[in-house]
């Protein structure tokens, strides 16, 4: 079965081909189901591979499958090849599974849209690229998927291309990602010149030998790779594209900008765990950036009113958690959170989408409220998602996030505090969104009000599936009890080498159950605190929020405007470069170079104009010039 791994990406590709090329012939339903089932098929295969993998003994759970050699040039040899190991399998499962659900959801959500076919084609293309990304066995192929998903996100964000904001957002996403990719590219070059190959297993197995631990080279490599990660996974400083990305259709936000693509960075860092392990500096950079992002994004999330933007910032912040996990060396945990996050964040987005659906596209929570009664399913599913992300026992988010906080604490209390505060804010703004949307008194505009309706089952069923997942998803990683952390044990072999290195680094973490339990309690308390604070502010005491704002107007303004980072970037990079280019074009190209070119021509003609004047037309002047010649010639001959 593992030999058929290549089928996993191929199915969506086929779906893309069918819908893209001959889809015009089909009905909307057909197109939708072709798209969905192609992904479903991949999921089936992924599952079977997963099972097969379980059958093998943990040590040997890493299989490579090369389809053909892509590029051969000199000593460069890049195959189209797949690597099946626990990590990639998990990713494939998540991508294809969540992907499938979201596809199905989209059938309902996108119903009647003009570019229905285009949408599904792009979506399949995305899944294809994403699967390539997670299943490739070498950096270059990973980079292919990496760029590919970027492209699809560009296309899908710009799906409503007639909206300027949408098109801009798409472009912004692509360009910012390119900036990250630039770092990634350079990192790959360094890897190539060091190892002479892009192959994962080869690189990682030789890493210890070829790279001095904590050496400059490995630090450089990992940092560059991390730059790529920050681009893809919307971390400081390259996160700005993600909020704008919400211009895309909601399923896209769910699939690409919550569940899968944005986590590619995390996956890549985890994939390169050994390299990062060898570079402590980079690790701490990752951790710091992760923590900072988690905190920073959360603060912004508090103040937003656009429901999708709230989710977007929460996504950024959650991704911060994942990087924090990787940064503190708990790669498995990072992936764990990646998975759970995929479940509940997708759920949240889809639910939000369902709300929009009902509200005929309204996103502003200030125009919602008391939707509970109209959208029962949406409501409880959204609530599940919120509970999960807020980290309420026993929802999935609790386990993963708590684990992250635990490892952060082990690494340093500072990380833990930041994480905890972020968690508090998270639960606050998530419940805030719940209350503003589903509870309180309705602020819905009348004309929107009278056709409020629950979404069709094709949309709600996926919601329920995801809701269940975000409820039970955490149980695969129950801490403390030995052997109950199935997930971690499954991934363990992948991260073993990194673990080894790290263990060698700082003394073995003393697993004191007491500490762990306390931390659990604290984080649970935090979550609940957030819940109550939100409840107080947005239900029992409406207007409290307003008072808050009035108390710290400056702070609020700052946060509400996302710290004006976009504006600053515009001034710093965009405008300045455009200006400078203008200058180059007008001044240098046209003035200087062409000036010289045309100048030469003009000088030549000028001389011509001068010389022709010698031709006075008077015969005696001609005789004179002959005479001059005579003088010179004779002079030369006589005086020589």
């Amino acid at each position, binding site marked *: 079965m593992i030999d058929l791994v290549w089928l996993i990406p191929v199915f969506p590709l086929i779906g893309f081909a069918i819908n893209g090329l001959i889809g015009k012939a089909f009905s909307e339903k057909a197109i939708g189901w072709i798209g969905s089932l192609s992904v479903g098929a991949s999921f089936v295969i992924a599952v079977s591979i997963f099972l097969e993998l379980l059958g093998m003994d943990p040590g040997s759970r890493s299989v490579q499958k090369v389809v053909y050699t892509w590029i051969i040039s000199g000593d460069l040899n890049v195959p189209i090849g797949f690597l099946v190991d626990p990590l990639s399998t998990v990713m494939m499962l998540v991508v294809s599974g969540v992907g499938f659900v979201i596809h199905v959801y989209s059938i309902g959500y996108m119903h009647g849209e003009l570019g229905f076919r285009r949408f599904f084609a792009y979506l399949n293309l995305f899944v294809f690229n994403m699967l390539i990304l997670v299943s490739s066995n070498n950096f270059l192929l990973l980079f292919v998927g990496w760029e590919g998903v970027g492209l699809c996100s560009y296309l899908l964000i710009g799906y409503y291309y007639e909206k300027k904001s949408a098109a801009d957002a798409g472009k912004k996403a692509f360009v910012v990602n390119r900036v990250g990719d630039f770092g990634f590219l350079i990192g790959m070059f360094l890897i190539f010149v060091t190892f002479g190959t892009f192959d994962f297993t080869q690189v990682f197995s030789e890493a210890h030998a070829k790279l001095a631990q904590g050496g400059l080279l490995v630090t450089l490599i990992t940092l560059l790779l991390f730059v790529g990660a920050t681009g893809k996974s919307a971390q400081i400083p390259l996160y700005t594209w993600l909020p704008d990305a919400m211009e895309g259709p909601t399923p896209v936000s769910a699939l690409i900008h919550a569940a899968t693509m944005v986590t590619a960075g995390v996956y890549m860092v985890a994939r390169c765990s050994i390299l990062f392990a060898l570079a402590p500096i980079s690790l701490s950079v990752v951790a710091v950036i992760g923590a900072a992002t988690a905190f920073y994004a959360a603060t912004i999330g508090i103040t937003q009113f656009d429901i999708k933007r709230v989710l977007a910032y929460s996504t950024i912040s959650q991704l911060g958690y994942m990087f924090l996990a990787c940064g503190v060396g708990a790669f498995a945990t990072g992936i764990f959170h990646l998975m759970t996050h995929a479940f509940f964040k997708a759920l949240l987005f889809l639910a939000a989408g369902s709300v929009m659906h009902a509200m005929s596209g309204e996103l502003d929570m200030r125009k919602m409220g008391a939707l509970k009664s109209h959208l029962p399913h949406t409501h409880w599913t959204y609530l599940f998602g919120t509970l999960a992300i807020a980290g309420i026992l026993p929802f999935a988010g609790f386990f993963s996030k708590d684990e992250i906080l635990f490892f952060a604490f082990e690494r340093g209390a500072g990380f833990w505090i930041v994480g905890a505060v972020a968690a508090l804010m998270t639960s606050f703004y998530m419940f805030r969104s719940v209350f503003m949307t589903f509870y309180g008194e309705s602020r819905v505009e009348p004309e929107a009000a009278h056709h409020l309706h629950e979404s069709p089952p094709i949309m709600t069923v996926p919601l329920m599936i995801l809701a269940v997942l975000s409820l039970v998803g955490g149980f695969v990683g129950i801490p403390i009890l030995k052997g109950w952390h199935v997930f971690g044990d499954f991934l363990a072999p992948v991260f073993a080498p990194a673990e080894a290195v790290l263990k060698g680094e700082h003394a073995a973490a003393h697993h004191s159950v007491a500490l762990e339990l306390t931390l659990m309690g604290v984080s649970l308390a935090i979550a609940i605190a957030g819940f109550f604070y939100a409840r107080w502010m947005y239900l029992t005491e409406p207007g409290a929020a307003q008072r808050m704002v009035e108390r710290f107007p400056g702070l609020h303004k700052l946060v509400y405007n996302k710290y004006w980072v976009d504006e600053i970037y515009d001034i710093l990079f965009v405008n300045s470069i455009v200006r400078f280019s203008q200058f180059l074009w007008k001044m240098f190209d046209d003035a200087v170079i062409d000036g010289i070119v045309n100048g030469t021509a003009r000088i030549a003609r000028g001389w011509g104009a001068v010389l022709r004047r010698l031709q006075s037309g008077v015969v005696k002047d001609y005789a004179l010039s002959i*005479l*001059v010649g*005579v*003088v010179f010639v004779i002079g030369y001959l*006589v005086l020589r």
Partner: protein
Amino acid sequence: MEAVLFYVLAVIVTVSALCVVFLRRPVHNVVFMILAMVSLAGLFLMLRAEFVAMVQLVVYAGAVMVLFLFVIMLLNLGPTIFQADAKSARWWIGAVLALGVLTMIGPVLTAVIPRAPQIGAPAAVPEMSNTEILARELFTTYLLPFEIVSILLLAAIVGAVILARKRSTGATKG
């Protein structure tokens, strides 16, 4: 004796040449031109080139100069102000350059001295007159150029004819 003769002729030639160049009336120019020709003929005689001297008198001083005279009459170029570009720099530059050439060539001319025998040395074949020798040369060795020149003259005649016959429309074309 010889020397005196030479200098007299030389002076006449030079002066009349200067007059040709500097006198204002074309008629006077012609007259002095003739004078120059004649005295040149004298110099030729001194150099034992009788035939050349004769031709000089007949063809030049005779035919050519008369032709000049005719034309001047024809166009009745009466007395005009001294027609040199006194004002223009052309005058000076031209004169200076010409003199420059003279001053440069002058010294060179001395270069031949060692090979130059005294004037008055006997001609190559004394028993023959200069004319005879010339004739012989002309009709044996130099027969070809002699024939070519006939073509040249023919061309000149034809040309003179058609040019003179050119009816003047006065209007310039093109």
